[in-house]
Structures are given as structure tokens and as C-alpha cells.
């Protein structure tokens, strides 16, 4: 069976678990535990292992959705996942103390995925706090990789239609990049 692994990364409370629940066709395997870091994200529970959801495409193919825990002390799991992943949806909550810094630290952590063009940024909780503009995020990304245009969207992870759009934009970008990525760097 053909499988495509998509990672959901980002800081605590960005909406990774929520996003997977919006997209998955199966009951999401959640691993929530009581949140001992209420000062970082004020919510009762936090993911401690991996969230898991699926979208089946026909009988022979599926998209596997994995959500990592946002808490930094679980980062030993990231190494295995980034090797297997086709792409990553990096969610950043607009109401984090420094969302752009958060985004850049995850970009650095998942640099290999980023360098092959497999990343889309979703800015969540923009309805809670306006936060930096999308232009601010794009400017920061441009400094880390001037040749690449990473899609940055506002998104409400509770909204399935928006999450489907983010996922499809990620896949479209990965496929087009595979087709053109080499060419544009050579042509300059």
C-alpha cells in the first residue's frame, strides 16, 4: 500500500491535535496527558506521544497524519519522523509570546524537510490575537532561505475546509517543487 506521511509540528497549543481531528477519517489516536505547563499553553491537556489520523485514498493508498507533542522534552521522537515524512504542516499560534521565533526554531529542527520544499506554515489563533502579519512571517522565512517561497496561511485548525486547503497546497507545492526545484536553481 502506498503511504504518505504528513507531520504536524509547532509549539504547544498551536492546534496540531485539533487539525488532525479535523482531517482524519478514522477516530484519532490521541495521547493527551494533564498539562503541567499551563504557563506556556493554558489548556487542561497536552499531547505526550504522537497523535495519529488517516485519510484513505482508494483501497491502495493512504495519507498518514502524525502530530508531534509541542512540549520540547519529547523531541527525541522527531528524528525518526522527519526521515519518513513527505511534508510538514507547521502550525504556529498567533498568541504565542514570539510566534516568528517559534516558527524559525521548528524550521531549523526540520531543516531537511524544509529544504526540499515540503513545508506549509499555518498561523492559528489569529482570531484570538492579531499577532505579526503574514508578511512578517514570510520576511523571516525569506532570510533563512531566499530562493524558496513557502506558503503561509492563516488557518483555524477547527475548520475542516481550511485544513483541507492547507494540506492540498502542501502537496501541490511538493509536487511542483519536485518538478521545477532543480531547474530554477540551475537556471539562475
Amino acid at each position, binding site marked *: 500500500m502506498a503511504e*504518505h506521511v504528513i507531520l504536524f509540528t509547532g509549539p504547544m497549543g498551536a492546534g496540531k491535535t485539533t487539525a488532525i481531528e479535523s482531517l482524519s477519517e478514522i477516530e484519532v489516536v490521541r495521547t493527551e496527558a494533564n498539562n503541567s505547563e499551563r504557563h506556556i499553553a493554558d489548556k487542561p491537556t497536552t499531547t505526550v506521544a504522537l497523535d495519529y489520523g488517516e*485519510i*484513505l*485514498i*482508494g483501497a491502495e*493508498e493512504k*495519507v498518514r497524519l502524525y502530530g508531534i507533542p509541542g512540549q520540547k522534552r519529547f523531541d527525541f521522537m522527531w528524528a525518526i519522523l522527519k526521515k519518513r515524512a513527505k511534508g510538514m504542516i507547521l502550525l504556529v499560534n498567533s498568541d504565542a509570546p514570539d510566534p516568528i521565533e517559534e516558527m524559525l526554531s521548528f524550521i531549523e529542527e526540520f531543516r531537511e524537510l524544509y529544504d526540499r*520544499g515540503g513545508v506549509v506554515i499555518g498561523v492559528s489563533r489569529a482570531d484570538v490575537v492579531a499577532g505579526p502579519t*503574514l*508578511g512578517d512571517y*514570510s520576511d523571516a522565512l525569506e532570510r533563512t532561505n531566499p530562493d524558496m*517561497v*513557502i*506558503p*503561509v*496561511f*492563516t*488557518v483555524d485548525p477547527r475548520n475542516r475546509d*481550511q485544513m*483541507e*486547503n*492547507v*494540506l*492540498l*497546497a502542501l*502537496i*501541490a*507545492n511538493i*509536487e*511542483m*517543487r519536485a*518538478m*521545477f*526545484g532543480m*531547474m*530554477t536553481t*540551475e*537556471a539562475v
Partner: protein
Amino acid sequence: MAVEVNQVAGEPASVSMGFPVTVGWTHAAMAVYSVLRLNTPVNLKMHIEMHSPLLIDFRHHAFSWSTPLEIFPVDAVHTGLETEPTSDAAPPLFELPGQDLDGLLWEMGINSFGGAPAYWLPPDERYRLTRWPNLTQHRHTMQQMQMMAVLGNTFVSTSELAKLTGADESDAQRLINALSLMRILTRTSAAPAAVVVAPTAATKRQSLFGRLRKRLGR
């Protein structure tokens, strides 16, 4: 600054400026394009039949209109357009935050020029995105999304863009017009990076995008 409020009543003004006769959103798009290039702040008011006036405050990249963009009136009859010089210190044209101007520029760009090139675009150029529009906030088709994925990764002309994605050339042009109005395109007149070939039925089948899109009923 001593610039007077300027009342432009539909078409004659643009004719005298040497532009082809335009109607509706094409005229509006040209006005917006011009104002966006001014060095002094100017507010715009558009009068549209059967709708309340559409107000644009460029200083705040915002607009105010009682008609929701979800029911954007493609064939609306524009009856007048006012430019109103303002200053950085002057109060906003309407109560902020208003709505994000990008949403209006997107609709306006897609629905003007009748699928022909926007008048400010010289022929024989190739385009690339400098950043993606905020797609979760704009009505868009899957084909437009795919075209943007092309534009995010390489320079292409309008006809190459159409060929690569199987889109009508006029639809590709409408997208280019909109992205250009939103000022998120860069242009080059250089030769193409490589020969553009239309995807075959086989490569389309191989595309996960195509299969997932179908699966999600889009």
C-alpha cells in the same frame, strides 16, 4: 496638500487618459493599481449600482463594504469613483480594522480585464510568486491552487502556466492579473528555464494532489 477631490464619472476619463474603454471592475482595478503606486496616501470611494459605496483606505490596507466577498458581484455597474487625498495622520476612512484589502484585490483581479492581460502587464514576460496569497481567506479553485504551486517554484509565462496545469489561458491570465494587483509577483523577460511540456495523462494519474483532491470531493 492641495490636491482636489477628484470625481471620475465612469468611462470618459479613462478614454482621455489614452486607455481603452473599460467598464466595471476593470476600471476599478486600474484605479487601484495607480493609487498603489502613488507616493502620497489617497483614499478611494467606489460607487456601485445596487450596492453601498465601497471604501478603501490604503494606509491600513483595508476596505469597507456591506456586500460580502462571498457573493462578489462580478457584473456590478460602477457609476463613479472618487479619489480623496489624505495624510498619514488623518483619521481612517472607516472604523478599523475593516476587511483585509487583499481579499478585495483578489476578487477584483480575477474578475477584471475579461481574461485578457491587465493593461499594466507588458507582453512576453515570465512570472514567479514572491509569496503565496492567504488562500484560506480567498475563494479559489483547485486549478488556481495548482497554478500557484507552479508560480511558487519557477518563472513561467501565462501560456506556459496554462499548458502546465491544463487551465484555459484566460483563467491563467485572470490569476496572473490578480496576483499582480496584489503585488506578490516578480517578473522577468528572460528565456524560460526549461522547455515546458504539458503533463500527460500518465503523470496526472501519478499526482497525489489529483487523487487527494478527488478523494476530498474538490
